[in-house]
């Protein structure tokens, strides 16, 4: 289905563009409705045929993937859910895919949140990914969800010296000391990697200033597209890598798929959302190129 759809859409859109190119080189302007038709097609065809593009991971995304990939199994990774439902469509694919990757690599995962809304989102991630896809993982041994605590960056200030000062129990009310996953874990400094997914306040910036920097702990981040440029100056010294917007999520998903081709039925919301957008972008760029070619080769004399 996917291949057939790809071939059909490539043929339709490719040949169409070629026809337009030839036409415009002859000096004929492209009618607006044709452009509209192309945009409509380039968005609906990938939607209908579920066409996706494999993304090539940019170094800044690659760095996060490589870090999780290169950590030895059983490494301790903390994922913080620092977002709410309104930001979720854009950043939830990131926390999902990173959590999944950690599970595949058999890391020990600690989930928490600096946003009150993060707690239900981390709980749903546990149900959706760990319980559904990795049923043999044991709560308290392979993963734990310690939930949300109020205090914004103050929380980080405390748990960088001692988890137990802030968190007496996990979300289910189980004493941290009775959880095997917390054996020998005193503070954030015992983590091999911190991941903050969010971007508002408190978010990645607070993780840099109050945890990663003072504790010299590796930190990776995932954030909405709008906040990515603001976080860029922290890379790579203070953030080892960053997933920016749905595109970052898509790049990560494709890196994971490439590494583990056996994961055929893994949900890939990032890549799926990128499909229509990418095609539409390319069509728009093709139109700009065609417009300029016709302007230079054919229409120059006629244009004002």
């Amino acid at each position, binding site marked *: 289905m996917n291949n057939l759809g790809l071939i059909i859409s490539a043929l339709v859109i490719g040949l169409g563009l070629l026809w337009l190119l030839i036409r415009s080189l002859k000096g004929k302007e*492209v009618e607006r409705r044709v452009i509209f038709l192309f945009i409509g097609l380039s968005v609906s065809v990938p939607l209908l045929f579920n066409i996706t593009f494999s993304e*090539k991971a*940019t170094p800044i995304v690659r760095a996060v993937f490589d870090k999780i990939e290169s950590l030895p199994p059983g490494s301790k990774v903390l994922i913080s859910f620092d977002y709410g439902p309104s930001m979720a469509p854009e950043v939830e694919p990131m926390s999902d895919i990173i959590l999944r990757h950690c599970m595949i690599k058999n890391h020990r995962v600690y989930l928490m949140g600096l946003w009150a809304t993060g707690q239900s989102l981390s709980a749903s991630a546990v149900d959706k990914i760990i319980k559904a896809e990795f049923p043999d993982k044991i709560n308290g041994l392979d993963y734990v969800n310690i939930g949300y605590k109020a205090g914004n960056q103050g929380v980080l200030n405390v748990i960088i010296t001692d988890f137990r000062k802030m968190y007496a129990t996990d979300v289910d009310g189980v004493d941290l000391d009775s959880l095997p996953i917390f054996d020998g874990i005193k503070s954030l400094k015992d983590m091999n990697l911190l991941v903050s997914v969010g971007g508002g306040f408190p978010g990645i910036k607070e993780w840099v200033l109050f945890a990663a920097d003072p504790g010299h702990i590796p930190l990776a981040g995932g954030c909405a597209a709008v906040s990515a*440029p603001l976080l860029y100056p922290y890379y790579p010294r203070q953030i080892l890598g960053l997933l920016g917007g749905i595109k970052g999520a898509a790049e990560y998903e494709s890196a994971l798929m490439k590494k583990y081709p056996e994961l055929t039925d893994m949900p890939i919301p990032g890549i799926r959302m990128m499909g229509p957008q990418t095609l539409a972008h*390319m069509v728009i*760029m093709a139109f700009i190129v065609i*417009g300029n070619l016709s302007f230079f080769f054919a229409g120059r004399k006629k*244009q004002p």
Partner: protein
Amino acid sequence: MKRQIPIIITFIVGTVLILSVFFPPFERLGEDFSIYFDIIAVFAFFLGGGNLIRIHGDKIFKRRKDWGFSLVTILGFFIMLAAGLLKLWNPGGIAADVAATGSLFQLMYDWIFNPLGATMYALLAFYVASASYRAFRAKNVEATILLVAAFVILLGRTPLGMYVTGWIPESFSILQIPNMAIWIMTSPNLAGQRAIMIGIALGVVSMSLRLILGVERTYLGVDNE
């Protein structure tokens, strides 16, 4: 008299509001005045609604072109107005939120207002494309700069940018198109926006002063000077 009093009102109200910022006891004046403005706006709705009925009613009675469609407007207007003001089908009665689930008002909002608005908004995808095709031509230096900046950003937001320039080593990573796109957004783009913003701020300040001093008065239907 008819011309002087409005200008004096503008002067007094404007000056008082400016001064209130510096004197804490009067700080909330601005807030209060904004609430007054909202209330005045509700009265203005009568003007607006009345005007709408007049324009479309006129079309219907005089059987002007497309009068049938004006009937659609009038019907839509009155049904929605009744649904909202009388809270028809509202499960909570008069105390409930006007858009409570199950009310006619909410149904019309969800299935008429919302799809129409969202679709109008979605038309933008088409217009963005046609505008870029039509306007992004390297006609002169300015247009070329515009074109190149837009193109780099577009490329940077698709996988294509990475495929083309991904091989460039990390130490020259600025030459990778996605990074170049980020840099354009954070540096020259920021500079341009800031220049415009400072300009606008000065323009607003100057215009406000002109209004308060009464030298700009077209809005009163009075010609300047």
